[in-house]
């Protein structure tokens, strides 16, 4: 890990902001620093080269792809998915026939596919409208393709077993040329869209917003702003799911939510 100058980080955020309107100013400093350090390492670049390359719009996609953390799993935290299946989804159905779900910061789509499998096994996939967003178009393409490294499937399979699904995860994918290709019909009604949580508009209302392990890369100022958007994007009594080690305790908007499952960090909007 190379030591990176904070002044250089500021220059990088400045260029990306003025030239491309992506604002990383309020990303958590130490992880942002590590991402930059990682880019330099992977691309064997000096800081000077990186600065120059940033003016090339063709490099931007690459940059966004590496700056965001795209480590995810299917059915990560199996107990979380059980609570969704057993409590949260039935709770939504009490009030709404259609279930509107937003995966905010969906990355390579593992959680979108997990959700689709969960809903299909409940015979509810046709009642659901799912929107999955990320700021990185490369990763959205990967999510749409539903093709994962076969090496990851062992872990995904383990998670699925602990989730206690009704089938085998193998029923949902085929192995093609060393890749696991997921059943595309699972996501045929999912809308994958480019959306930046930092300066993107509120675009719809949802019963459930999933944003797990995304806001850990933001500082508290930005967390507050993004939570305001989630609050606005939820129907009253809609649910917000964040990562198991994230918390709203320190956030301005906490009083407009109640926690419905503390272990799995699922909140419910109770005030407009």
């Amino acid at each position, binding site marked *: *890990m190379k030591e990176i100058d904070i002044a250089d980080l500021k220059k990088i955020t400045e260029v990306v902001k003025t030239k491309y309107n992506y604002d990383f100013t309020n990303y*958590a400093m130490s*992880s942002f620093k590590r991402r930059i350090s990682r880019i330099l390492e992977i691309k064997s670049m000096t800081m000077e080269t990186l600065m120059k390359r940033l003016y090339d719009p063709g490099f931007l996609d690459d940059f966004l792809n590496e700056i965001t*953390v795209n*480590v995810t799993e299917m059915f990560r935290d199996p107990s979380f998915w059980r609570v969704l299946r057993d409590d949260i989804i039935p709770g939504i159905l009490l009030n709404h026939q259609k279930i509107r779900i937003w995966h905010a910061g969906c990355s390579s789509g593992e959680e979108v596919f997990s959700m689709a499998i969960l809903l299909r096994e409940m015979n509810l996939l046709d009642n659901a409208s799912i929107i999955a967003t990320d700021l990185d178009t490369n990763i959205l393409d990967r999510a749409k393709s539903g093709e994962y490294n076969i090496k990851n499937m062992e872990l995904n399979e383990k998670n699925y077993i*602990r989730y206690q699904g009704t089938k085998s995860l193998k029923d949902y994918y085929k192995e093609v040329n060393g890749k696991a290709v997921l059943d595309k019909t699972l996501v045929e009604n999912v809308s994958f869209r480019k959306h930046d949580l930092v300066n993107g508009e509120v675009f719809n209302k949802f019963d459930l917003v999933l944003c797990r392990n995304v806001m850990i890369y933001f500082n508290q100022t930005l967390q507050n702003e993004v939570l305001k958007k989630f609050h606005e994007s939820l129907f009253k009594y809609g649910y917000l799911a964040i*990562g198991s*080690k994230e*918390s709203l305790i320190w956030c301005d908007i906490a009083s407009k939510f109640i926690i419905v499952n503390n272990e799995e960090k699922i909140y419910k909007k109770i005030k407009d």
Partner: protein
Amino acid sequence: MTNFNLDNRYKAIVIGGSAGSFQGIVKILSNLPNNFPLPIIMCLHRLKHVRNGFVEALSIKSIAEIVEPYDKQPIKKGKVYLAPSNYHMCTELGHYFSLSTEEMINNSRPAIDLTLGTTAYVFRDKLIGILLSGANRDGGLGMKYIKDRGGLTIVQDPAECMIETMPKAAMNATTIDHVLKIDEIVEFFKQLHKQYK
């Protein structure tokens, strides 16, 4: 017993451990002086997909409360913090933790190098780093960061370790101030505690 010639400059302790470190950690925590004044930040390799049980197992005998912090949770003195499973745990300049799901480092998440390195960045020469038994090299580089920033470095005596790879990696990477058996680390904590009375 050795006199460690300590003073009260230190503001935090960070501990890394892996295979074979559990008993040692339990011994250290169960012999911790009451009202120990510094935060103890621990990064231990653990089963990646078992979220519960580890804190509980460590807590049984620990004198101080053990917390798996949330992202952005402030660091308080007198508490023991443990990196949660499947997250990296980093210390931030405002004296709080940040968690991350970034790629594994040294095949580990949480990675000891990351906890040690970020904590050294924040606490500089006011940090004590301790590396215990373990089967991979994670932590060696982190100990070097601690030393480079003026902190105090301690490793568990390889002769006592169930697996010596980890402390040996640190000894190869940097200068280690004290090579100690667990009983001596317990004594070290006692002498350190006296400096804050």
